[in-house]
């Protein structure tokens, strides 16, 4: 088979006919996740866009079983499923908790903390579209500074930086944390395959642009995700045992943050207050410096960070 840019399995565990919005990277994220995990998988999905996407009670969009659970319970429902499957002799099944940012950063954090601290043998993945999209774009603690949502209107946009969920998980010393985005599918799949072989609590932070929620044409979502990585808004990382930090990738050229912001209507108002854009740039810079410091502590050098235009 020839696919010049990628080495991805052709097996599809996401079926056509699911009802995600046009250009939904949350749907693409699931497609890639299941390409990586295969079909020996059980999924727990709390209240989130995926409650709808997977089809109503008559239909199902995945070739793997899904248990729909309450908003705040993805981590623990997955834990229960894992325990149940283990007791029924299905010890090698990967159990995936699949939640949005609201169900993760906010209401679900307690159960995540519990499962992470106990090092439950599950993969927890958050597809982060930076607001409560399923209920109509309300801010979550994953909403970035400066962003418009229906509860942070443009006249008073979000005034706090995004919650650093990765650091919270790192503080739990879980065996594996990865940040991924569908714009970098091979990086995504590589990490999924790596995580699959690890026992214990594994966390995926998936950056998943949402065209309606970000006031963005639907064809821009992969580009927005790519720009988020290029501008360091969303660095691609791995954190092992809460200590070993690896920055996987740094775009070799300087990309102005504005390129990322101007793609999205939710940041439109910011261009009237350029000082707020500077605030974001400062946040990004500090976060990056911190990550570089952690990377150096781990590896002794930053030379091993991949610096290519086309990262895969």
């Amino acid at each position, binding site marked *: *088979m*020839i*696919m*010049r*840019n*990628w080495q*991805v399995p*052709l097996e*599809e565990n*996401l*079926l*056509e*006919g*699911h*009802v*995600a919005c*046009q*250009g*939904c*990277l949350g*749907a*693409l994220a699931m*497609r890639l996740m299941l390409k990586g995990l295969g079909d020996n998988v059980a999924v727990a999905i709390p209240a989130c866009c995926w409650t709808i996407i*997977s*089809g*109503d*009670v*008559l*239909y*199902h*969009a995945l070739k793997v079983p899904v248990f729909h659970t309450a908003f705040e319970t993805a981590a623990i429902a997955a834990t229960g499923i894992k325990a149940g499957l283990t007791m029924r002799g299905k010890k090698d099944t990967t159990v995936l908790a699949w939640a949005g940012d609201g169900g993760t950063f906010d209401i679900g954090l307690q159960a995540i903390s519990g499962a992470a601290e106990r090092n439950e043998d599950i993969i927890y993945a958050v597809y982060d579209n930076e607001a409560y999209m399923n209920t109509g774009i309300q801010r979550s603690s994953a909403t970035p500074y400066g962003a418009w949502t229906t509860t942070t209107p443009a006249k008073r946009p979000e005034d706090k930086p995004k919650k650093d969920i990765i650091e919270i998980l790192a503080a739990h010393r879980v065996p594996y944390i990865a940040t991924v985005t*569908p714009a970098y*599918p091979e990086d995504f799949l590589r990490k999924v395959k790596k995580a699959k072989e690890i026992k214990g609590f594994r966390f995926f932070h998936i950056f998943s642009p949402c*065209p309606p929620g970000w006031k963005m*044409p*639907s*064809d*821009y*979502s*992969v*580009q927005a995700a*790519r720009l988020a990585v*290029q501008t360091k808004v969303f660095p691609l990382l791995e954190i092992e045992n809460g200590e070993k930090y690896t920055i996987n990738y740094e775009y070799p050229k300087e990309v102005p943050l504005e390129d990322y912001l101007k793609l999205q209507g939710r940041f439109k108002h910011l261009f009237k207050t350029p000082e707020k854009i500077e605030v974001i740039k400062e946040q990004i810079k500090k976060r990056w410096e911190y990550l570089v410091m952690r990377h150096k502590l781990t590896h002794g050098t930053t030379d091993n960070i991949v610096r*290519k*235009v*086309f990262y895969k």
Partner: protein
Amino acid sequence: MAKEPIEFTDKVVKVESLNDLPEVPVSQRFTLVNKTGSWRNVRPVLEEQNAPCQNACPLKVWVQSFIDLLTRGKPEEGAIEILRNNPFPLLTRKLCKAKCEIACNRKKYDAPVSIRELEGFTGNIAYEKGLFPKREESLGKKVAVVGNSETMMSAAYFAYMYGMDVTLYASKPFDGLGLSDDEVKREVDRLKKWGIKVIEEDKDPDTLKSEFDAVITDKKDVENKLTFQTQDEKIFAAKPERKDISRDFYFGKRAAKSVWQYLKGEEITKDAPPPRAVSFNNIVTDYFEPEDRIDTINTMEEAIAEGNRCFSCGHCNSCGNCYVFCPDAAISWVDDFPVVDYDYCKGCGICVNECPRSVLILVPERG
């Protein structure tokens, strides 16, 4: 309790009574029943676009395609692709002005692709293996090509390719190009080997009119500079300009085409200007790494490395982006190429936006 077989189906089942639902709220059918293609107001279509190299080339060599074939591991097919438009790639390798490289979009990224070298290297495979392009269906017509210039060599080549029986009258083929005897012999032997009758003597084109259905010559003046017709409808004339060898080859090619149209009884048309080429702005450069240009290509490794630098503007080279980025799994990968399933494609446009070479385009849906 009613029996609860879990039957997975993609059929719509109407819920008309309790018994159509399981005891427990679990789905037993797949979403394949949702033809989400109905959501779409634009559809992505895979449509070959012109590249600037191709448009700049007098011979309109389909550069993207032969490089694609070469780098795909099909160098012989790549060589034949060249030969469809360029009769003498080893001569263009040596003598062409390479306007393709001047037009190459990659020039705006780092450096233009070494197209001339790639074309020569790939073309050489055809020389070594005795490959020729596919001929058009035979018209059963005889054509005489009279003259020594490279334009006539090209005319003979293309007249043969267009399915005519060709006799080439040339006492000194490729005269005036400064080629060595070996080079001349190499090219003439190729023509002979393919099936062109070569008679090494000079002839007066007019004397051949009765014997042949048409004559092409560089010994007469041309009437129509676009179709190379002369006042005599049976005689077509083209002379080399000696500014750019590809352009001189093109004259021969165009003259042969006019003869072809003439012999088929069609109207002899001039060449239309090529469609707009994919511009640099249409290229998604995030999918390309800056790479040093390889100026001279001697090995297959070098050829593939240089070939991989090609943006393949407007030509699907199976990069896989559209397949990989489709959130709806509506693109399948069949025989190395994407196939859009319009039953499910929602028309989000990601595949078009992420197509690095603008070969996928969005077409509005009409009703």
